């Protein structure tokens, strides 16, 4: 491919979840002839099985395509896909840092949503050229003019040239391709300056070591170059560079403005992190590129192998996964009940879910997760402050001056008719009302400050159900606030099980205790002896349920064919038993540790 910096366009696509971002990407690949239609799997850039199954984009992914524009020139388009869910805004900010422009996809039937606003503001912050694309104009309920006006009024982006498309049928997509060449600026940067390349993603390959995805901001890089990682100060020799189309194509070099991949036999994955700058070791750049805004994990949980012999496997899997998922953090911890494992931090519950599934599928692990927790700030009587990410590590109550919990500012965009139910829900979830604005004639934005811990317990599902799916939610961390909180211990057979501890809002502790013990009573299989399940706060039992002992499990009749059937049943039970943890003398199934999560709504 001939290199001409003026003919490179680096852009990403931003959209609210389900507004058709991945479908538009598919269409672009098809129309540029990058992928033939018969090879096109739905949502090509969603390379993980998990992404295709759930129809969501989790990982950003980059692809290079060539496009011959109407001006007769050949362009190189680097498309960087972005995730649409609120949990993954960090990934969005990373991909935006590698671009000069963004396509803003808005569903013509739904209009601007809370998440759209959040992502557009990120793009504008990054000085990107934003091109509006109104999608799904082929649907009978499409209101393209209305949506255009909405984008102009609410976001302040000129929509007179907005592309009207149907990503599904391909209608209007050629205009989008033209607009990219015409309106998105070519990358700036000095091809003769010392190399500065931004790492925006990486993954591990067992043959080549770490593969990094880079955007060359200044200079160029080629095979054989000695490169320096500016933060970790490590030097490597480049073994391979190329572009992804989406299959990897070796090019031998990457020039100023280009996006592609690079390998350099980097074996230690800790040496590389997204946001790192690559330069040449002999002629280094003066300073690294500005790093990304690093978003801290909001939710923590314990992650343990069901089979304690798999601890090392889990450690290795986490190392590799965190390379591919910069927002995942983890450190070793030990639980009396679950043995050796890790405390992991996530951007949100969806992220946690995705990490669990990826570990189980891609690394063939069987995991136990403890209920997620936010990070609490605990001010001790000696005025020192502790950050607590694991409820079981809560200090003695007598030494605590106050406990503070994280609050988020939540914006909920909703049709006006649901404002009432939403406010009720927010009140129930201990929200503090901050604002209510009209967005347009029919929609309003409800703003509340809410404890993050309430949001992670089923808030989103409740919101969807009380608004028939019409409300959209966006939130960001606001501040820590003092709260009336206490640690609730769960005792099985009289012994506290550290992995089941949680931090609760005291005025709701009694109800929550009842809900948890009755849930556990149903989940934990009956044992040979009766097992009391108790919830206690500061050593005082607030709720109790008993798991009755099993007295009879034998099959009454066992002749001839019954024998083989019984053997099969027992073997199935034996397999089920292997997925349980022995806590003291009680066999506890995996899901018990997460059960605290699903009972949030049983509380009146």
């Amino acid at each position, binding site marked *: 491919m001939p290199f001409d910096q003026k003919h490179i366009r680096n852009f990403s696509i931003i959209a609210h979840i389900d507004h058709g971002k991945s479908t538009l990407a598919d269409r672009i690949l098809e129309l540029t002839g990058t992928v033939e239609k018969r090879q096109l799997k739905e949502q090509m850039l969603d390379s993980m099985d998990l992404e295709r199954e759930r129809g969501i984009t989790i990982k950003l992914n980059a692809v290079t395509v060539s496009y011959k524009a109407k001006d007769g020139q050949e362009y190189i388009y680097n498309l960087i896909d972005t995730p649409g869910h609120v949990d993954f805004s960090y990934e969005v900010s990373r991909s935006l840092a590698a671009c000069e422009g963004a396509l803003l996809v808005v569903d013509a039937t739904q209009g601007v949503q809370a998440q759209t606003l959040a992502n557009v503001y990120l793009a504008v912050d990054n000085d990107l050229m934003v091109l509006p694309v109104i999608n799904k104009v082929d649907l009978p309920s499409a209101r393209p003019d209305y949506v255009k006006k909405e984008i102009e009024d609410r976001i302040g982006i000129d929509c007179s040239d907005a592309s009207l498309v149907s990503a599904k049928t391909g209608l209007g997509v050629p205009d989008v391709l033209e607009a990219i060449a015409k309106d998105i600026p070519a990358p700036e940067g000095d091809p003769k300056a010392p190399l500065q390349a931004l790492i925006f993603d990486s993954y591990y390959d067992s043959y080549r070591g770490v593969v990094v995805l880079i955007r060359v901001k200044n200079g160029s890089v080629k095979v054989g170059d000695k490169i320096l990682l500016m933060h970790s100060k490590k030097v490597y020799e480049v073994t391979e560079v190329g572009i992804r189309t989406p299959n990897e194509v070796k090019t031998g070099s990457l020039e100023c403005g280009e996006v592609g991949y690079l390998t350099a036999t980097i074996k230690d994955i800790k040496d590389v992190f997204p946001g790192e700058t690559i330069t040449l070791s002999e002629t280094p750049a003066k300073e690294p590129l500005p790093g990304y805004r690093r978003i801290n994990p909001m939710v923590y949980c314990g992650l343990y192998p069901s089979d304690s012999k798999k601890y090392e496997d889990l450690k290795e899997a986490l190392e590799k996964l965190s390379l591919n998922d910069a927002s995942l953090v983890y450190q070793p911890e030990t639980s009396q009940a679950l043995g050796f494992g890790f405390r992991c931090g996530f951007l949100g519950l969806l992220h946690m879910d995705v990490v669990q599934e990826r570990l189980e599928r891609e690394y063939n692990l069987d995991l136990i997760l403890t209920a997620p927790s936010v990070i609490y700030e605990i001010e001790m009587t000696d005025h020192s402050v502790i950050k607590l990410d694991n409820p079981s590590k809560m200090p003695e109550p007598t030494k605590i001056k106050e406990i503070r919990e994280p609050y988020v500012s939540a914006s909920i965009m909703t049709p006006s008719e649901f404002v009432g139910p939403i406010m009720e829900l927010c009140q129930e979830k201990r929200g503090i009302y901050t604002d209510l604005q009209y967005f347009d004639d029919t929609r309003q934005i409800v703003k509340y400050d809410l404890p993050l811990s309430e949001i992670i317990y089923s808030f989103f599902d409740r919101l969807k159900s009380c608004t028939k799916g019409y409300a959209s939610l966006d939130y960001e961390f606001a501040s820590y606030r003092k709260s009336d909180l206490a640690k609730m211990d769960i005792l099985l057979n009289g012994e506290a099980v550290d992995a089941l501890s949680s931090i609760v809002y005291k005025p709701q502790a009694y109800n929550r205790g009842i809900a948890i013990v009755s849930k556990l009573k149903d989940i934990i299989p009956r044992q*040979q002896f009766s097992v009391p399940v108790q919830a206690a706060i500061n050593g005082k039992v607030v709720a109790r349920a008993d798991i*009755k002992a*099993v*007295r*009879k*499990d*034998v*099959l*009454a*009749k*066992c*002749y*001839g*064919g019954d*024998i*083989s059937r*019984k*053997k099969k049943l*027992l*073997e199935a*039970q*034996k397999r089920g*038993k292997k997925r349980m943890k022995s806590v003291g003398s009680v066999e506890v199934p995996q899901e018990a540790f997460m059960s605290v999560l699903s009972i949030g709504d049983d509380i009146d």
Partner: protein
Amino acid sequence: MKPSSLYVHIPFCSSICAYCDFCKLLYRKEFAFPYVEELLKEVEGKAKGLSFHTIYVGGGTPTCLEDPLFEKVLAFLSPYLERNGEFTIEANPESLSKEKLLIAKRFGVNRISMGLESSSEKRLKEMGRGHTYEEAKKAFALAKEMGFSNLNADLIYGLPDETLEELDKDIDALLALDVPHLSTYSLTVNEGTLFYNKKIKEADDNDAADQYELILKRFREAGYLRYEVSNFARPGFESQHNLTYWHDEEYVGCGLGASGYQDEVHYTNTRNLTKYLKGEYLDSQEEEGEQDRLEYYFLTNLRLAEGFALEEFEKRFGFSFLAKYQKEVDSLIKDGLLLLEQKRVKPTDKGILLLDRILLTLFK
């Protein structure tokens, strides 16, 4: 080792009981004739050169066959029985006529097993049984009169909302039959039965355990020994045929849906009559390794009150039971589920009811 037991299945019944999940078909003459033809062909092939210490004709209801066909089956099987062997037929009170008993007698049948199931008219109706308690009582009396002394009666407990008082009456009625062998089964509700479709629930294990304990107490007082989870006998009247299963010994199985165990392989016949009549008997068989053989051994032998002898185990598997299972045995003994006594491994009274727990510990 050559199998020394033969099971023969007659799948026909004149009515279908609400709880029954055995392989059964409503009796129809035009099916019964070709079926018996094919069945005897299967027996001939599988039993070639063998003779049996026990033969068991079960069902279904063997006595629902018309007399000539019934006679044909017994006449065919009779020569395969060893001297002093046990020859059992299953029967229903309503179809055990004097004629049937005469035929049975002529061909060497010496044990009859019959379902009483309950003494309450209401319960019998609920279960879809075709007889009353009085009719059952008469059938047992008739069998005795005709010289059959080795008789078994079945009882089902754990029926929907059954009380201990109700069960106590059933026990009285059962003991009044004065037969040397009794079997009691707690109701299990399996898919494909009327009870299942009616969403009838099995008794909670706590209630079932109370009922079982009442049965155990009353039967023991009446001089019956529990030799297996659900089986009780006066000394010397244990079912030799069923002991084959619980000793994990091989046996030949013939007939629709029947199971067998030969050359270290468990097999099950088809439940499809059309296939069966074409001579395609086999439905499935298992590949078995040592772990499977161990599991089968425990699963069967530990149902017996006397369990198994350490010496027997070692002879069969070539290693010492305790050497391999010391840790598990210690914990089971500690939990009061297992006993080591006179070089035998036995379940305790508590353990026999929690056999699944014992087995899951041993199936490591």
